[in-house]
């Protein structure tokens, strides 16, 4: 059975070029980047090369990149590192839990947090952010692209608001990095998080851009790694992988790969909507990253749909996995104003660089048929009598 993976917003396969770039740093060049001998120097050179690649991808100086263990650490470092007790933080209801739960913790230890809502397109209204400002506001944290709908947030406008109000602006760009060009200067942010494994680098590495001159408290204490902003021996192979993935993303943008991916995504979306009744795109009325579509199939249990598709070889997702592995209705879709039923009936398809037109056609052959069968058996489908089973 072929197995097609369309869940690249969860994680992506490491690209062969990335894997090859990393390989020597497990054994041949295994050094500790802090060591003074030649082994250490090789590792240091690799880390700094990767830092330059990451900086080039974000349009910043290499010294402004702090490598972390991933997107969650980058988000936590930005939020906790830029605020103090008594500060006010503005964020949104659709942030990743890495931001929302970090804010909840900061609230418990003496910060104030305002969560701005979403409009029905899935966007934060910059005016809501402006209205939420208080004299003690220290930080605005609004994501660049949403993980579930792919909807791009008005980060440049929010950057202007932050600049006018002279408050810090952090954006979680985990779902944007590698998918669309990013320029931290245009965004006007003080901090920006990325994650390796969402852009074809390995799991366990990420980075935080921190604008020069921005005072950042570290999350934990140890050696003076990463200019004392992140203690702990560098994950050299992971960092090398992140750098390489950044380079590949940049050359892809030059070739227009993201436009091709958008065309594939649109082929999938149009193909499904053309074949399935009572379906539609969540967040389809505004700008999105080119790889994501979130589609509701009314009267379908999204969780059963994901399982049925997986058993036939197609990996997609719904909502967010909770600790047991069961799914919960997406807080993002609920925040956009979807009914809980429609939120539960929504499926996210997210493409990666490895996906081909054949993959999309595989999905198009499978999804409408599976959806039809689920509706036939669904106890909530209006065209079927309520089944006693």
């Amino acid at each position, binding site marked *: 059975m072929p197995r097609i993976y369309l869940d690249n917003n969860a994680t992506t396969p490491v690209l062969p070029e990335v894997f090859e770039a990393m390989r020597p740093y497990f054994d041949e060049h295994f050094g500790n980047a802090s060591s003074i001998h030649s082994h250490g120097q090789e590792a240091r050179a690799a880390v700094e090369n990767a830092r330059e690649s990451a900086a080039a991808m974000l349009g910043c100086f290499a010294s402004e990149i702090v490598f972390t263990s991933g997107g969650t650490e980058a988000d936590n470092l930005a939020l906790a590192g830029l605020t103090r007790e008594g500060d006010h933080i503005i964020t949104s209801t659709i942030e990743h839990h890495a931001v929302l739960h970090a804010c909840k913790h900061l609230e418990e230890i003496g910060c104030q947090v305002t969560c701005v809502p979403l409009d029905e397109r899935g966007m934060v209204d910059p005016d809501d952010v402006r209205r939420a400002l208080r004299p003690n506001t220290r930080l605005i944290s609004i994501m660049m692209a949403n993980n579930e709908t792919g909807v791009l947030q008005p980060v440049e406008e929010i950057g202007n608001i932050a600049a006018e109000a002279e408050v810090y602006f952090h954006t979680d760009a985990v779902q944007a990095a590698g998918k669309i060009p990013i320029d931290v200067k245009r965004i006007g942010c003080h901090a920006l998080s990325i994650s390796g494994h969402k852009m074809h680098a390995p799991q366990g590495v990420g980075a935080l851009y921190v604008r020069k001159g921005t005072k950042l408290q570290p999350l934990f204490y140890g050696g003076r790694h990463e200019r004392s902003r992140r203690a702990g021996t560098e994950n050299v192979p992971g960092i090398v992988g992140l750098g390489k993935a950044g380079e590949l993303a940049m050359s892809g943008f030059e070739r227009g790969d993201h436009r091709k991916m958008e065309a594939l995504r649109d082929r999938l979306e149009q193909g499904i909507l053309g074949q399935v009744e009572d379906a539609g795109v969540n967040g389809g009325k505004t700008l999105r990253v080119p790889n994501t579509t979130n589609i509701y199939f009314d009267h379908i*249990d999204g*969780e*059963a*749909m994901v*399982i*049925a598709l*997986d*058993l036939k070889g197609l990996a997609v997702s719904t909502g967010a996995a*909770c*600790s*047991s*592995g*069961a*799914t*919960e209705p997406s807080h993002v879709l609920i925040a956009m104003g979807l009914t809980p039923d429609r939120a539960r009936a929504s499926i996210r398809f997210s493409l990666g660089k490895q996906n081909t037109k054949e993959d999309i056609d595989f999905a198009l052959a499978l999804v409408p048929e599976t959806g039809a*069968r*689920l509706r036939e*058996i*669904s*106890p909530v489908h209006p065209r079927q009598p309520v*089944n*006693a*089973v």
Partner: protein
Amino acid sequence: MNPKTIAVAMSGGVDSSTVAAMLRAEGHNIIGLTMQLWNQRRLAGHDGMPEPVTGRCCSIDDVYDARRVAQHLGIPYYVVNHEERFERDVVRPFVAEYLSGRTPIPCSLCNNHLKFDQLHVVARQIGADSVATGHYARVEYDRDHERWLLKRPADHTKDQTYFLFGLTQEQLSRTLFPLGGMTKPEVRELARKHGLALAEKPDSQEICFVPGGDYKRFIDAYLAEAGESLPDTAGELVTTNGEVIGEHSGIHNFTVGQRKGLGVATGSPLYVIQINGAEKQVVVGGDEHLYSRTLRAHRVNLISVDELREPMRFAVKIRHRHEPAPATIEKTGDDEILVTFDQPQRAITPGQAAVFYDGDIVVGGGWIA
């Protein structure tokens, strides 16, 4: 044998894990499913509730165990979230029953609304022909009467048919109980033979969402979390003659047959005889008042017969640990059955089920009014 696609409801315990292993060894296509029904952390530590405990249904540990078994067997495995439905159809009614003076059986509600309803729907949607569980019971098809039968298992000490009386013909036709012919030690032995690491895992006994078995605390914590105040169900303690002998703290703290915690001292032992929800009265009396010959059952489900056309003789079980007693049952209304026992039975309790047996065959059952 034609291999079938079978969904196995896996709880992370020995029984359902062994079912998965058995059916896999028989060559069927198995899909492991665990229902996430209740967040065990939800009320933990609230209002005197115990901290999260391990080794119970829907705990992360049990899902972990189920997943490890599925990996060991090499079968696809998924956790499906039915927390909302469980709360609506099991937890809410459980609380409401206690607050109106009855003693509920959440396991039967869970079987009727979740395990043999929601899970069956999911199983059919993902392409499974039937659902297998680790219940100790048997399903057979009676060709003569064209009915699916629910029967007691070979091991009567593990009999779970009392909790399964609500199954419909449709549900039974898609259900497999592979452990029906086995004893618990045989199941553990088979689990060991299949290399299941949890072969020695102890059985779970309590109500899965009530850690420590303290349902009163659970009701307090649940209502507090929902922002609802506990209704005032305090009232009078009266004797069978109607004499008021004291006060009680709320009818939900009592169950028929209860002796402890009445808060009155008398010469002879007193028991709860009856709970009068409308008047918030708890009626107490001596042991002899606990016996009664009749009960009325509602929300009746019939399994081996399609209709009760005339009074019939069956054995009737009125609680999980009750030896079925001979009785005459007759239909007395649209959805009402009158059960008249040959001998008076002790502590017939509203909210529990009355299940009718013809030998090993479950005829049907209803809820005691």
